[in-house]
């Protein structure tokens, strides 16, 4: 699909917002302002933005623990998102969810998940529901290469194909599940090969190439919307940061990290846009600046937001 200037700018802005958000997250954490852990997707921005760029606003996504990028790409309010990251009362989840559980139900983001593979069975059911409501909406379900080894993956693929749900399963293969190297047992091609056996049309992409990601996911989205059932896209990418704050990067080399940094999805996209005369260098810098400014104001918003009242602790466990 051809890329409009407007869209190109939007995608670049979102990728920079993701990068800026996560850099800020890291800083806030280092400064002791954040209690808990977090999972950064720096280096994976094209997978999030490229995939979600294919959706209508009324469509859904469901994410995973490394979900900041997905949330931003789905159009989250950065203030509410940062506030949630800070555990504040006015965050998306009233401070109850935090980094690993941000959801924006009205915005069609059905939430991140702390259980690896936890979102996959949910996606099947959301797909069933979407078919029942017959409004032609589709769902993107994100998961990692690690999740592909879970029983949940297997059962979900079988059920998705059986019920022909309008879901595109997007595997963000960043080469590692914590320290477990996907090269040891499954590559993007292998994950896609599994998908084929389940009956899903399956593609492996260069996940750092936004255009390639978008085109592959778009095919899946069109198929789903047209009643053609589920498909699988595996985006080959890399996380620059450690798995989480407990990571000491013992299982990989600096050379490997540096090699992947050279494949920065943002720079790759900028280069493409420049060649295609969609975004000049000046414009790109302007966009970048705006992204960092947006995040800075989100930080200010979050830091000046109120803590939840402990008296409200038990609110929201049960629905009336």
């Amino acid at each position: 699909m051809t890329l409009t200037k407007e869209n190109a700018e939007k995608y670049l802005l979102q990728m920079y917002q993701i990068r800026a958000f996560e850099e800020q997250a890291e800083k806030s954490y280092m400064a002791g302002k954040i209690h808990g852990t977090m999972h950064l997707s720096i280096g994976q921005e094209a997978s999030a933005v490229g995939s979600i760029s294919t959706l209508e606003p009324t469509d859904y996504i469901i994410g995973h623990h490394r979900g900041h990028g997905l949330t931003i790409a789905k159009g989250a309010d950065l203030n509410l998102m940062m506030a949630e990251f800070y555990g504040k009362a006015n965050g998306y989840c009233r401070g109850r969810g935090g980094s690993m559980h941000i959801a924006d139900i009205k915005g069609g983001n059905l939430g991140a998940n702390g259980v690896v593979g936890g979102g996959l069975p949910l996606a099947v059911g959301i797909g069933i529901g979407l078919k029942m409501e017959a409004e032609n909406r589709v769902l993107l379900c994100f998961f990692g290469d690690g999740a592909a080894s879970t029983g949940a993956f297997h059962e979900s693929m079988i059920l998705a194909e059986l019920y022909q749900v309008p879901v595109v399963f997007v595997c963000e293969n960043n080469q590692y599940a914590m320290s477990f190297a996907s090269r040891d047992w499954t590559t993007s091609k292998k994950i896609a090969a599994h998908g084929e056996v389940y009956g899903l049309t399956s593609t492996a992409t260069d996940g750092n190439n936004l255009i390639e990601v978008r085109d592959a996911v778009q095919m899946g989205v069109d198929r789903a919307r047209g009643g053609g059932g589920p498909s699988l896209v595996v985006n080959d990418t890399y996380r620059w940061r450690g798995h989480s704050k407990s990571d000491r990067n013992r299982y990989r080399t600096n050379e490997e990290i540096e090699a992947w940094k050279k494949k920065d999805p943002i720079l790759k996209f900028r280069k493409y846009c420049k060649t295609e005369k969609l975004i000049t260098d000046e414009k790109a810098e302007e966009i970048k600046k705006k992204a960092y400014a947006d995040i800075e104001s989100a930080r200010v918003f979050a830091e000046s937001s109120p803590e939840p009242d402990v008296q409200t602790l038990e609110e929201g466990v049960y629905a009336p």
Partner: protein
Amino acid sequence: MREISYLEAVREAMTQEMERDPRVFLIGEDIGEYGGAFQVSYGMLEEFGHERILDTPITELGLTGAATGAALIGMRPIAEIMFMDFTTLASEQLVNQAAKLRYMFGGQSTVPMVLRTPAGSGTGAAEHHSQSFENWFVHVPGLKVAMPSTPYDAKGLLISSIRDNNPVVFIEHKLLYKTKGEVPEEPYEIPLGQADIKREGKDLTIIATAIMVKKSQEAAEQLAQEGIDVEIVDPRTLRPLDTETIVNSVKKTGKVLIVHEAVKTGGFGGELAGVIAESEAFGYLEAPILRLAGREVPIPYNRNLERAAVPQVEDIIEKARQLATLKV
């Protein structure tokens, strides 16, 4: 009034709710043509078709998650786990997802679903098809747990469960499926969290669940002949629990025997004992709180061993007699 079986009551509740609300659907293993392992959904495929009776392959985790996901966007699924023993495979989605999505998302969503599953022994199906795990799910905030003992309660509680905006674990007992009782034809609700006094009495209180209610009733008849007048309280819903009814009964009788089929240690009887022992009923207790429950074994195959592994009418009688004579 018309009498139907417990099994028919469950089926009728599902059928009526599906007729009323197009968002309600069934998902589970062999629930279509086969009619479910216990024939609970027999005939429903003909009425509702494959769009609303979703037969699954063997995927307890997947199908429970599918129900949860559908509920998350507004459907009202009823999932069936063929035997409660296999909720072990489903519990991640039930406990980590269904029970928590609402709270974790700060109240943005609801998860109106029911997970139905038959528990209990007595069918000779041995260790992997006979367990009772209700207290596992009682232990999980975000879930509700219902456990009917009669056809009437089964229908009313299931309708309430389907209409409830939260995930409800609905536990049926295999040996109750064929028991009969009066059940109104029209739909009705029994509020979740309302215990029922199945028999009034003044000498001692038996709190029993599921099939133990029936066994306690039989025991009570015989005890009555010995001059021991038993009150039987059936919580019906284990979470939320109707503490008030329980506490009042114990205050009245001063003695309490808790009876359930699940293994005693770590079971729901402990929770009941805890609730009573910390309540104002404590001061009224004239004897220790007794528990009679499943023995500390997996359920064995042999009929006699199987029978010995869970409380029987004669055990209840003996324990109640003992309690009747006890003094602090």
